[in-house]
């Protein structure tokens, strides 16, 4: 049997950095095949080669046994390769139906659009995905989860023989993800080859027949699901860094009492804080040295709460007390000057300056918070020290490099590091390890714990429940814009989910 897709000795470099080195493996026709690896392992680069948007420097891509030189994404689509992107590649200005058919519109002669047909097909497709969205709705009005499902609908809208999905569940709830898996199972039964890239090993084991691991741009192994355990895969992914993992897993969970003992003052207290229509009447405290987890489903108002505390959005009622004085910050700058900083969720849009070197990226928040006007030469040394201290990127990374040479995990470390450099009293983190690999995740956890040990209060928003359970001293749960419960750090996933999803789930 010829393989649906075969990568043969693929090399790809960006500037001096090798993203893929001599990668060879094959994906059988009709199987579902996972590609796993830490961020920076080369998964996305490999998918981009498959989607025709990158060309390998060396080596060959074979599709159905034929050597394929793809001229561009259009060419890949024509060969029946569909790709669901990790990034939210939607057209915010177009309707849902127009999004689904973008680039492959149903037309009559001369390109006259068959709007009604596209609307009907979209409605049927959305129905199949159980997405309750009108085909005429504009994409910029959709929730994140719906936008992600829209990308899946896009791929399903035409008959692809090979469907590649890059982290398709990051914005989905467990139920929505399970729905997606059901659909993928159905497609597979119909003969479609599925290529699935994810950090979530549970999903990989749920869905895939075989699992290929990449590490540092190299092929490590392809194993059958039946013969592998999740520990095997983690070991293959992390490789040399296994030691770090072992050390951190033995970390004794902190208790709230421990946190309070080290420093009794509250780092943050909110009193019936509201910002209509996102959330209301939120009263919570974070003690100095304490790590508080904030869990909630997408749309529960968690991000908006953090944004309101640092002054990115206006509170409609209630108050914020920081270090025993009542504050209402009008901007993140004002908040940072009082020692309250937010590490935002979206590092691409909110976290990094891709036009500036790492040195400047790392120095800007501290310089602003301290009101420095001169950009000193000491910054360079500081930046170099920070890169080493947080183990950001390979040894070859210089403060003069720009953030785009770093993998997602290392970019996230830069975002965290630049805010921690302001020596905050209270650190608000929004999804600090979203889209980050296992190794970087543990390192980021270490950074957060280190800061708490030094006496800072931390409020961590995360959709990753196991992460919150290992990291937090206490867990607060938000639902539909209100706090709906508090659990100790040693609660179970089930207890938290029951609060967050309510009886309706």
């Amino acid at each position, binding site marked *: 049997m010829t393989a649906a897709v075969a990568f043969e000795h693929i090399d790809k470099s960006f500037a001096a950095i090798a993203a893929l080195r001599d990668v060879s493996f094959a994906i059988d026709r009709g199987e579902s095949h996972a590609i796993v690896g830490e961020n920076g392992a080369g998964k996305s680069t490999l998918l981009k080669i498959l*989607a025709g*948007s990158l060309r390998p420097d060396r080596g060959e891509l074979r599709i159905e046994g034929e050597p394929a030189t793809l001229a*561009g*994404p*259009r060419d890949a*689509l*024509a060969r029946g390769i569909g*790709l669901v*992107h990790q990034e939210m*590649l*939607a*057209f*915010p*200005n*177009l*309707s849902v139906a*127009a999004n689904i058919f*973008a*680039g*492959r*519109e149903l*037309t009559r002669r*001369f*390109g*006259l*659009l068959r*709007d009604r047909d596209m609307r009907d097909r979209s409605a049927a497709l959305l129905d199949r995905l159980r997405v309750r969205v009108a085909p*005429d709705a*504009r994409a*910029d*009005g959709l929730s994140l989860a719906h936008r992600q499902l829209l990308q899946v609908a*896009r791929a399903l809208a035409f008959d692809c023989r090979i469907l590649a999905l890059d982290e398709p569940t990051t914005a989905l709830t467990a139920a929505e993800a399970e729905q997606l898996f059901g659909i993928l199972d159905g497609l597979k039964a119909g003969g479609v080859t599925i290529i699935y890239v994810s950090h979530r090993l549970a999903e990989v084991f749920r869905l895939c027949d075989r699992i290929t691991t990449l590490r540092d741009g190299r092929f490590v192994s392809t194993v059958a699901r039946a013969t592998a355990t999740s520990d095997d895969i983690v070991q293959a992914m992390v490789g040399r860094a296994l030691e770090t993992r072992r050390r951190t897993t033995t970390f004794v969970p902190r208790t709230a009492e421990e946190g309070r003992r080290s420093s009794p003052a509250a780092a943050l207290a909110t009193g019936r804080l509201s910002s209509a229509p996102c959330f209301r009447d939120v009263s919570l405290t974070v003690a100095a040295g304490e790590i508080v987890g904030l869990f909630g489903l997408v749309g529960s108002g968690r991000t908006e709460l953090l944004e309101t505390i640092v002054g990115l959005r206006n509170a409609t009622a209630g108050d914020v007390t920081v270090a025993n004085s009542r504050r209402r910050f009008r901007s993140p700058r004002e908040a940072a000057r009082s020692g309250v900083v937010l590490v935002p969720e979206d590092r691409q849009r909110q976290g990094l300056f891709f036009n500036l070197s790492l040195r400047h990226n790392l120095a800007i928040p501290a310089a602003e918070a301290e009101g420095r006007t001169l950009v000193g030469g000491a910054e360079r040394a500081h930046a170099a020290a920070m890169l080493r201290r947080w183990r950001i990127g390979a040894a070859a990374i210089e403060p003069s490099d720009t953030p785009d040479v770093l993998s997602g995990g290392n970019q996230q470390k830069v975002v965290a590091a630049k805010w921690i450099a302001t020596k905050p009293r209270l650190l608000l983190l929004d999804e600090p390890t979203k889209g980050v690999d296992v190794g970087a995740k543990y390192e980021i956890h270490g950074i957060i714990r280190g800061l708490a040990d030094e006496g800072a209060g931390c409020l961590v928003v995360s959709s990753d429940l196991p992460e919150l359970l290992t990291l937090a001293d206490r867990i607060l749960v938000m639902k539909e814009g209100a706090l709906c419960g508090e659990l100790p750090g040693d609660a179970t996933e089930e207890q938290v989910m029951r609060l967050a999803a309510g009886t309706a789930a």
Partner: protein
Amino acid sequence: MKALRDVRELSTLALLAIEVAFFAWYLWPDGGRPHPFLNGANALLILKYSSIYGIAAIGAAMVIISGGIDLAPGAVIALTGVVAGALFVESHWSLGASALAGISAGLACGLVSAALIVGARLPPFIATLGVMGIARGAAFIITEGRYFDVSGQLPAGWRPLGLPLDWTSPLLMVALAVVFHTLMMKFQWGRAVYALGGNPIAALYAGVRVDLVQASVYLIAALLASLSGVALAIVQGQGKADLAMGYELDVIASAVVGGASLAGGRGSVIGAVLGALIFGVLRNALPQIPGATFYDRLIVGMVVIVIVVVDQVLQRRSARL
């Protein structure tokens, strides 16, 4: 999506109606004298002069919707008029052949813009800034300070296609608006232009022929600008290198007032034409108000800002709901 855009065009139309009503009231004459603003001849005058940049504004709207910008229309209008005028007046070419030659010169400008933007990947602002200079310069070189008296050479009482001469360019504007509005709303090409402006990377991944679409938009914009140039040469009766100075900004302002967003992805062709009419009415009525002569530029500038700000506030409110 469709409903929203319809609303946006209706609000531009409402604005135009309010504007006309205001000037009709303000300029109401005393004691039974004929109305200086509200009469058929004046309406035709407004339509005639609005159509000159209104035609080019159709192209500007499409460029802006695609996420780009075109600074060349004013210069292209002048170059077209000069080339057509020179051939018609001095070389005694037929009117049709002269107009075609002028349009070809305009298209050549569009081709250069497209090549620089798509081929050399220059930012549209820079590429079209360069083309603007080249086109204007070429016009000056051709005329060497002369101007071509087109109207003197036109046959007396000439009625192209059996229509009064004054009607041709407004009718051309309306016809082109309908054609391009349909193309933008009902055809794959138009959908691709909206997609490109909404998210260029997603457009590439979706299999949109991004380069081709982008190039076609600048070519069509140049074609429409040169049609404006022909209209101007006939309406003004002359080809002259320093005509249509600064029209690129009027053209962009028309598209923006008509709902086009400079961030790309939003706007409409019909809106741009209505925007051109809003400015046409202002330019016609303001000089008729005693003492307002020196204020008209200032008022036009303020109107652009007020309309766009109000539009953004409304957008933000509807986004929040």
